[in-house]
């Protein structure tokens, strides 16, 4: 063991004891993607004894520019499973646990409680909030990392060595972002793009914070967000204070967490039903429906075969009262994206049980 890790054991303040602490440590990595892959590779190489990997996704060609643990032959396979095989090859001492599932309010506590540290490499707000809240309840440190185009953020939440005496807790993601942004407000990598090198740096930085927490060396980023910008070569630190009201909307115990709907909380209504034009035709012939076009006036083509009402997205809030809410409302737009947001707004504001959205929008209409 010592030969393998000799170059880090020899470091000042590291030694055999830090290496032994690494080999006893159990780290869970949420998402084997752009952030998770580099974090996993360095954690495995450094001698962390037990690593959990959770990811329900399959490897795609468009992942390979940043998820360099994977290669072309892995396309179509589960990320967590492939990552485990590759990491095991790199370090046979490693004990790896694979979870081919999506982490959510029902399974988060059961999975997370078996680990000492969690690294969040997820790519969406519902997952980030459920992981944060589960770690807060279980008092397990969480290493947060996220990216946007050429920029990254890193921080450490729930650090056991940074407990505030008055609030009896450490910094929490909710101290800075108590509520999630509205759906669509923060675009994801799919929509905005991301430089592969950036996720490599941010994920590696998360692994570094994990190693520091486990071995007790250096200072971790508790109550501090580190930001980095690849284009300007700027790295900055922003400090924040714990906020007494920050946990107002958060579950306070395991039972509350397991009943919390994080999709709703993050504005992503999980029960908005998307239908095809074919299905719409069936409903149109049997039920009393309103077909609602939320596109702007200039957008073409117009619908000819069905009676419809037009309220552009920007006027929706002020003109919602024009809709007869005893009828089933079916919303469409050009591509099927705006109509989901519109359906969500209609359900929330008009307190409707269900509003349908046409998948693919007018672009998917079959004139026959």
């Amino acid at each position, binding site marked *: 063991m010592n030969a393998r890790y000799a170059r880090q054991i020899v470091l000042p303040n590291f030694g055999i004891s830090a290496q032994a602490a690494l080999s006893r440590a159990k780290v869970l990595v949420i*998402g084997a*993607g*752009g*952030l*998770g892959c580099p974090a996993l590779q360095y954690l495995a190489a450094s001698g962390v004894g037990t690593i959990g990997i959770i990811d329900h996704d399959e490897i795609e060609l468009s992942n390979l520019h940043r998820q360099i643990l994977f290669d072309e032959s892995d396309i179509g396979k589960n990320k967590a499973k492939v990552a485990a095989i590759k990491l095991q090859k790199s370090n046979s001492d490693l004990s790896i646990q694979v979870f081919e599932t999506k982490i959510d309010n029902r399974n988060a506590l059961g999975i997370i409680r078996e680990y000492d540290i969690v690294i*969040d*490499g*997820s*790519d*969406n*707000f519902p997952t*980030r909030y459920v992981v944060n809240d589960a770690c807060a309840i279980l008092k397990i440190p969480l290493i947060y*990392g*996220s*990216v*946007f*185009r050429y*920029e*990254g*953020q890193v921080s450490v939440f729930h650090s056991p060595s940074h407990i505030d005496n008055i609030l009896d807790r450490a910094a929490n993601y909710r101290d*800075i*972002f108590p*509520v*999630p*942004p*509205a759906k669509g*407000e*923060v*675009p*994801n*990598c799919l929509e*905005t793009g*991301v430089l592969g090198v950036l*996720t490599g740096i941010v994920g590696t930085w998360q692994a570094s914070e994990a190693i520091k927490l486990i071995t007790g060396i250096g200072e971790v980023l508790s109550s501090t*967000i580190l*930001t980095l*910008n690849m284009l300007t070569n700027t790295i*900055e*630190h*922003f*400090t*924040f*204070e714990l*906020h007494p009201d920050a946990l107002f909307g958060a579950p306070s115990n395991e039972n509350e967490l397991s009943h919390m709907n994080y999709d709703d909380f993050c504005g992503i209504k999980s029960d908005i039903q998307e239908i095809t034009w074919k299905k719409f035709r069936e409903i149109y012939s049997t039920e009393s429906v309103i077909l609602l076009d939320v596109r702007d006036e200039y957008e073409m083509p117009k619908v000819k075969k069905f009676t419809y009402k037009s309220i552009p997205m920007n006027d929706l809030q002020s003109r919602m009262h024009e809709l007869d809410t005893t009828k089933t409302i079916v919303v469409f737009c050009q591509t099927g994206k705006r109509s989901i947001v519109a359906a969500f707004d209609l359900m929330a504001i008009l307190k409707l049980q269900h509003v349908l959205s046409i998948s693919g929008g007018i672009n998917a209409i079959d004139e026959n």
Partner: protein
Amino acid sequence: MKIIPFGKLADILENNVVFVDHILDTDGLRHALEIQFPQISHIQYLVAVNRKIVTENTLISSDATIALLPPFSGG
């Protein structure tokens, strides 16, 4: 006062002169930004004064550096 916008806010403020004359505090700054850039009113962001994130209205001195930090979710 120097303003450093991050993420999507950098897109919105980029190549624009931000008018911050007579702004005394962070509430005043948020208000002035929303008037000049209406799309900002729909975006959640943190304000940091001299690299300290503030959640309550905070005085801004004329030589302060202000950062505007939206949340990111990408991974």
